[in-house]
């Protein structure tokens, strides 16, 4: 269970990295299109990067964080449930920011910054699970006497 928790946390952190990659790809696709004389309008299909960003952000990462929360109940990782809840909260915040930024683009700045916070917390949770699985050997300091 600890290993599952660790991997879910890591996948979420990797997912955030992919999200950044997808959206950069999507933006460059638009600039390429525009350079080709095409207009990007309400009628345009979302570019591949934008579509992937929407898929991962709206479905895959939320699903992973829900699974992480469920696994945290059984994984016995110190602080594991709290970290899973924190990750869930940040994912919710990220999704909300993703949608309220459409009418208020300046909020997109927060969407960008929160991505790093989310990746950090998920990564930290994964690290915590890793420690719990294989703790570093401690110097024996028993008062043997």
């Amino acid at each position: 269970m600890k290993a599952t928790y660790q991997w879910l946390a890591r996948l979420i952190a990797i997912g955030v990295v992919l999200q950044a990659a997808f959206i950069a790809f999507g933006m460059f696709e638009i600039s390429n299109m525009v350079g080709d004389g095409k207009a990007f309008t309400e009628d345009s299909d979302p570019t591949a990067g934008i579509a992937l960003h929407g898929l991962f952000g709206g479905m895959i990462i939320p699903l992973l964080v829900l699974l992480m929360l469920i696994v945290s109940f059984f994984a016995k990782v110190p602080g594991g449930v709290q970290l899973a809840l924190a990750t869930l909260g940040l994912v919710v915040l990220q999704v909300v920011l993703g949608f309220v930024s459409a009418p208020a683009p300046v909020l997109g700045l927060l969407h960008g910054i929160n991505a790093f916070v989310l990746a950090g917390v998920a990564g930290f949770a994964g690290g915590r699970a890793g420690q719990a699985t294989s703790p570093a050997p401690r110097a024996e300091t028993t008062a043997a006497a």
Partner: protein
Amino acid sequence: MIEPRRRWWRGPRLRLAVGIVASAAIVATVGWFWYGSLVPSTYSVMDMGYVDAGGGPAGGHDHAGGTSVAELTGPVDGTPDVAVTLTARQEEFALASGEQVDGYTLNHTSPGPPIRATEGDLVEVTLVNESISDGATLHWHGLDVPNAEDGVAGVTQDAVPVGGRHVYRFRADDPGSYWYHSHQASHEQVKGGLFGALVIAPRAGTGGIEVVAPVHTYDGRRTVAGYTGVQRVAAAAGEQALVRVANTDNGTLRLSVTGAPYRVVALDARDLHQPTDLTDRAVRLAAGGRADLAVTAPADGSAVRVDFGAGAALVIGPSEAPEPPAAELDATVDFLSYGSPAELGLDPGAADRRFELRIGRRPGFLDGRPGLWWTMNGRLFPDVPMYLVREGDVAVMTISNSSGEGHPMHLHGHHVVVLSRNGEPATGGPWWTDSLDVEDGETYQVAFVADNPGVWMDHCHNLPHAVEGMIVHLAYEGVTTPYLVGGDADNQPE
């Protein structure tokens, strides 16, 4: 020392039990919402959502008896004054300016051939589906035809299968600019080119130069009447041209007229009353809407330019006049105060029905898919309102939008008049519309007369939004539809 007995409700067993219960709660909740959102593949729009009688009498939502939509046809007898056959195909075609597009054509062209009639004519259009595997229909956008001629697959007819045909007959009662398009898998077929212009000239005629300008963006390339780029329209100095613009795309169109003052003489096929000259102001035209611009070539022999965005423009003037530079104007015309008031022809104070439509957005499941979806009065598709009216009713509807983006709302079969926006009353020439852009944060109050019995769609004309369930219906007491969404004909109106 005696060891105290382990209490079963402490320690690891409790943690496990709580964990199982919490997980089950999460899965059950998500699963319950997921299951509740599923939409059957075949259903009747009469069974969708809930009935909103707007404070009026609520009887007559019968499934048996009453009038069937199939009976509400146009004139059955009479020789047509205008008879057209449109053969629909799914094929690759070239735009008039040469670019190749993979889409849909009518009589091998996109836009399809313009249909022209004069006020009072009996129009007969035969749609033949030669190769569109999803089926096709034709809807007369803005024309308040009898319900059975409205062309909505699954509501007023079955989609025409490959090899089939459907005959539409209607009288061209209201002169103005319209367009026609498929209403089967419309988000795909309209985008792919299954549309055309429809112009009904007044009996007295318009005289002078007339430019029919349906605007459509094919794969990022904006066209006006099928051509990309700048087109020249020859006009003598001082000569007036009537430019009938139809927005066939999903997004709002910005029309920037530079080089001379101009007037908007009609919106959505309804003349504006005493429109004044406009300078340095653009027209924001909602998706599906039409604007008739009276543009005059300047007396000094220069040309006037109408920019449609994305490089498409019309330059109107003598052929030797230099091409004016492209422009995109920021300031826009506010139709709430453009022109001067005239008789509405209805009394909103004596409304028989008062409806509310609140457009929003929230997370949830739409037919099993998670996401952030549009809500109509707080509910996701298919739990949307069906507004009930009786023939002759005057209805007032308040439409508000807090969904984060603007939506062009299109009511079939009727025109509505704008009474106010955000509480500010309309003071201009009556703003009659069938395609109204409701921006984020805006509230419109509109009124209409229920003078066209049937079952009518009212939906966002940013068609991908309609696919996501941004639809409501207007239904008349005692009228039912025998058609089904899905079913053997595989009707998919959006």
